[in-house]
């Protein structure tokens, strides 16, 4: 029955995700968006790279899945989509995968405005390999390779992708389920390149190193950091501080702000 998330889960699969992992939530939120759109999941293709986030579709989703190489998901997806435009193609991968090793593919797909929906699962670290710094790690954050706190500036991924020409760009956190689900629906329905950055915290690799000892604490910490775009309007840079602004940054032909 379309509309039921359970129907879209691959039977018999034991999830590899840690207890309390936010990616467990995201598995269901992506499927809920698909269910709400009443899409026949057999018409979809899910492509992912390498990392924890890349395991969201493969093997959880009971659909065609292509689990590729680290950083290359978008390039693989491009070939499949161009050859068979009927495939509703979604890429789900991590911040390291899409923005570091795969960064070039990301901006070029945005430039071409290839009809893909890319979900960038941002836990702000390399979760799978032990919590090293990623291009999305905020400054000052402790990781296994920034033992004195991160000194490099992170990418604003939404700005980057919007500037490269993406049709639809948005950022939400797993803690904002309903705007996130609507956003994923919009992304799927947009013809052209859609990019949705999802803040999906990792309490094991990110939390523990930054004095957030449990999954709940980590989620709460990020919930406190996320501001909707209109809430952020008019705030001074000092007031904004290290807040994460969520919302839509490019929609259809709108210019990125």
């Amino acid at each position, binding site marked *: 029955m379309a509309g039921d998330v359970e129907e879209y889960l691959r039977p018999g699969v034991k999830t590899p995700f840690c207890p309390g992992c936010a990616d467990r939530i995201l598995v269901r939120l992506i499927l809920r968006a698909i269910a709400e759109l009443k899409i026949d999941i057999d018409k979809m293709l899910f492509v992912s790279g390498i990392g924890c986030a890349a395991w969201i579709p493969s093997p959880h989703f009971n659909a065609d899945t292509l689990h590729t190489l680290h950083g290359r998901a978008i*390039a693989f997806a491009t070939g499949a989509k161009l050859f068979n435009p009927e495939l509703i193609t979604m890429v789900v991968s991590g911040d390291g995968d899409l923005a570091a090793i795969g960064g*070039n593919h990301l901006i070029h797909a945005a430039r071409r405005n290839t009809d893909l929906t890319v979900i960038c699962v941002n836990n702000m670290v390399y979760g799978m390999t032990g919590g090293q710094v990623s291009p999305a790690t905020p400054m000052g954050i402790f990781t296994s390779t920034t033992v004195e706190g991160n000194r490099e500036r992170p990418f604003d991924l939404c700005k980057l992708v919007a500037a490269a020409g993406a049709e639809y760009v948005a950022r939400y956190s797993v803690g904002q389920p309903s705007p996130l689900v609507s956003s994923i629906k919009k992304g799927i329905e947009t013809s052209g390149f859609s990019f949705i950055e999802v803040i999906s915290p990792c309490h094991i690799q990110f939390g523990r190193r930054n004095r957030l000892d449990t999954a709940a604490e980590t989620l709460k910490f990020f919930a406190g950091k996320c501001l909707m775009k209109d809430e952020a309007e008019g705030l001074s840079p000092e007031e904004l501080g290290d807040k994460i602004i969520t919302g839509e940054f490019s929609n259809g032909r709108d210019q990125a702000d």
Partner: protein
Amino acid sequence: MAWKEVRSALPPGNYYYSGNEAAAEGAIAAGCRYYGGYPITPSSEIMEWIAVRFREVGGVFIQMEDEIASLSSVIGASWAGAKAMTATSGPGFSLMQEGIGYAAMTETPIVIVDIQRAGPATGQATRVGGGDIMQAKWGSQGDYPVIAISPWSVQEMYDQTINAFNLAERYRVPVILLAEQAVGHLRERMDVREKIAIFNRRKEKGAAPFGGGDDGVPPMPAFGEGEKLLVTGSSHDDYGLRKVADPLVQARLTARLHNKIVNNREEIIEYEDYYAEDADVIVIAYGFTARSSLFAVERLRREGKKVGMIKLKTIWPFADTLTRDVGSRAKKIFVPEMNRGQIAGEIMKYTCCDIIPYNQTDGEIIHPTTIMGELRRLL
């Protein structure tokens, strides 16, 4: 069987094509309808030819942002049901290695044309080389099977590209056309027959897409057919389910990947024998060098010298049985190569016969007079 006869894409007749153009036409004839590429000398003419011709035959062409992306997109297209290929040269071939390993692991039929130029690194972009032989076999991590073919003429660029697609589809394996600049840029007469035989990947609804059949080659469904495929470069069971710590799964998969090529090698390997029957000195050569060698061998035969030649058409899997047999008959084996002895070393694995390598890496082809001179000293 999934063999069938089809009409050639080009009207039958004689054409005057470059090797690169012939490879592009061979691909089209074989049914290739997806090409992702990135410009590099001396292979770019293949991409440019495809860009024009795909508009006529209805294929999907895209110039990607680099060679990693090119090959990745080709693999994605292959799973979407396409016969897909890319072409490149040295530096780009290096970037494609991770994709080659992935295609081998996921048993994805793809064709890569490598127009070898003088290396290493950027080397001499317009000059000839033959240094990618071992890279084609061992370039990606973890020990995997590939098929590599070495064409010596424009005709073979056409015929062997068709063959490359047939082998890729038949064995679900990456196939590399290891050509050289001297063949890619050579113009020659190319004969197009009315009909060609092509093999299309076997399909079987519901069958395990990574299970292997009698011959170790499983059927291959495409995305969008409702098979709910799990395709992964991680180790996996017969249905593609990731099994990243199970020794049995790992052992079975790697053995099958290897065996589906090695156990079928008699069917895969092609070579040609020129005067080798009663020869004391046998030249083993491939690609352009085999033409120089044959020219030299025929001259010497006319003088009554007992020389012969084996031309390797298939490089990988290597012709081990043939090499053993040649080694048991010949007094000496002469191996001229445009590298530092890559195939000579391979030959030494299979025979104790006296092997004399000749290695030229100056960006020029090995001339028949050079080979003649070397052979005279051996006779």
